[in-house]
């Protein structure tokens, strides 16, 4: 294995990790903040991708700028959908057992899938990256897509931004307080309902952003909602549900493991992710950076 090979596998592992992190971050945030396992997170991701891959007549007239506008618009629209979901459906279930909440998000998953078919049909959609991001960078004797570097950059900025938000802002403090002790928080006069909605909306925005950013790398179609879920959930669990830093660590570990596994143990490469998760959870059930309950 040459140096060029190693560098190439590391970079492609990081590119995979970036996507995994963007999706897992929303899952782990919603679980940490609301104790909800949101299966419909995959649907929100898919909607983000469809928004970028669909023609918006008014925007497309702008040519190259249309991609950037749709990239900014997708998380906002998906965030609004998230707000609607939280207020109309999930808020009524916080006092119910976890199973009811899980079933509700499952139901939403199927509803969103059907709705997507009504809105966008069954055909595959394809959207190219803007020219400025479509090039390649040379690395030793290899070539690496600029767009993947862009995805890594988005993931890093998002991760740092989230971390800062939760650690250093009043809003972040409230989110963390809502997780630790909602009753005490409500005594201070904070509207805990509003904080819950905000947490869910933030999760939805992250899902929409992930889908939007990933759209030029995919054939956007129905089924995207399911195919991303398992990998993203594994990353969130390995990292420790509720921990953004854990999701980042888990994503990098799994992304790089898989990149090398594909080359070194091809017949087992698809299993390596699950084996990693099982082994890790056997020794540390709360995940890498999760808190033991």
């Amino acid at each position, binding site marked *: 294995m040459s140096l060029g090979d190693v560098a190439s*596998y590391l970079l*492609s592992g990081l590119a995979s990790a970036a*996507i995994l992190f963007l999706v897992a971050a929303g899952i782990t945030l919603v679980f940490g903040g609301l104790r909800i396992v949101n299966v419909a997170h995959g649907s929100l991701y898919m909607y983000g991708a469809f928004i970028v891959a669909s023609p918006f007549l008014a925007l497309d007239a702008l040519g190259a700028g249309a991609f950037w506008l749709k990239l900014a618009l997708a998380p906002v629209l998906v965030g609004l959908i998230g707000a609607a979901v939280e207020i109309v459906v999930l808020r009524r279930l916080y006092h119910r057992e976890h199973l009811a909440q899980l079933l509700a998000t499952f139901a939403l998953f199927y509803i969103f899938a059907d709705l997507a078919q009504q809105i966008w049909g069954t055909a595959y959609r394809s959207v190219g990256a803007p020219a400025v991001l479509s090039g390649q960078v040379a690395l030793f004797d290899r*070539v690496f897509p600029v767009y993947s570097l862009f995805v890594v950059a988005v993931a890093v900025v998002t991760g740092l931004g989230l971390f800062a938000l939760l650690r250093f802002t009043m809003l972040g403090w409230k989110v963390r307080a809502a997780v630790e002790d909602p009753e005490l928080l409500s005594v201070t006069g904070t509207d805990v309902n509003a904080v819950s909605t905000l947490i869910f909306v933030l999760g939805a925005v992250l899902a929409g952003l992930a889908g939007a950013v990933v759209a030029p790398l*995919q054939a956007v*179609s*129905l089924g995207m909602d399911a195919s991303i879920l398992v990998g993203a959930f594994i990353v969130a669990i390995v990292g420790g549900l509720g921990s953004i830093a854990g999701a980042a660590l888990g994503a990098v570990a799994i992304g790089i493991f898989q990149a090398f596994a594909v080359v070194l143990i*091809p017949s087992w*490469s*698809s299993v390596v992710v699950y084996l990693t998760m099982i082994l890790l959870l056997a020794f540390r059930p709360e995940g890498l950076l999760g808190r033991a309950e």
Partner: protein
Amino acid sequence: MSSLTRALVIAAALSAAGAAHADTIKIGAPLVMSGPFGSVGKSALEGLQMAVDDINAAGGLLGSQIEVVAADDAGKPATANTVTKAMILNDGVKALFPGSNSAAAVAVEALAGQYEVPALYYSAADISITTTNFNKYAFQLSASTYMDPRAIARYLAKNDFTKVFTLTPDYNFGHSYVTNFLAGMKEAGLTPNVVGEQYPAIGTTDFSSYISAIVAAEPEFVFVGLFGGDLMTFIRQAKGYGLFEKTHVGAPNATDVLETLKGDAPAGMYLWARAPFFSMDRYPEVQKLAARYHDKIGAWPPEWPILAYTAVQIWADAVRRAGTFDAGPVAEALVDHATDTIRGPVAIRDCDHQADAQTYIGRIAATVDERYGFPLLEDLSVIDGGDVRMACDEAVSLQRK
């Protein structure tokens, strides 16, 4: 009017209505119309309906009008079983035109054999349909998974590629596709040197590690057996890694790739398909059907409507020659006869009911065709199915197991 009289009047009206419909014959179509492969079934249905409309407009079949009963099986065998049984028992369909995947196909095939209804396959292509799961009412009109890769190997033989890397989905189709391709290479006189074999899971969203592995192995040819959304995702990502400049890559589903990726489809890539209308200029009826589809749907057709239309044509022709809709005589009329269809003559052989289906192979052109908005295939070859079918002895012995 007394209640008895009223009842009699209603009964008379109903039976009159029933009599008016006695001349309608129904054909069934369990199709995948939802989920990631929903476009297969939906477009196939258009082809089935057009064929039926044309038959009805020309006076029907044996004096009867034909009606299509379609149902979504979601690509799942259990659902396929339910909807097909309903079609057979409630609607009394005289033939089945399944347009779904191979898993659902097997479920339908069992029912076709059990209830004695001819089933004409044009989308599902697994070899088991004509071998291990075979019964006398199943007919395969497309190139099976045995034939397809052998056709490609023949086409590639002229290039003398030996270092190959395979990338196919991780289930039995993916594995047998590779086995058949390597066997086809040997039959074509090449000695394959497999520098890598990868089996990504269906629904893989991120192929970057696989692509890196392929580039590192420096193959002469990459045999890709992915399809649907996975294939297009792979192509998009592989472009970023410069794969198509470093080596030769080939994949199926030419129509999906070209019509979805359009100008972004990588020039020079090898693609194969069963019925790409834009490579079938020698069949004017196919061009007419494509234009008709485009007028109605607003997009150019994939191969499914053309294959579905042909399937109905073949069945209708057998019915005319048999003089009846009954399954037994129709099944006999279907074999060993070259039917003239919109895509040329199609003949189904007796031992395994496999048609001499063609495979179209070519390379993606560098420029987009103005008529269609996507690049076409150049360096085109049409491999005759008759040359690459499994030997009858082998097929029959597998049927007996």
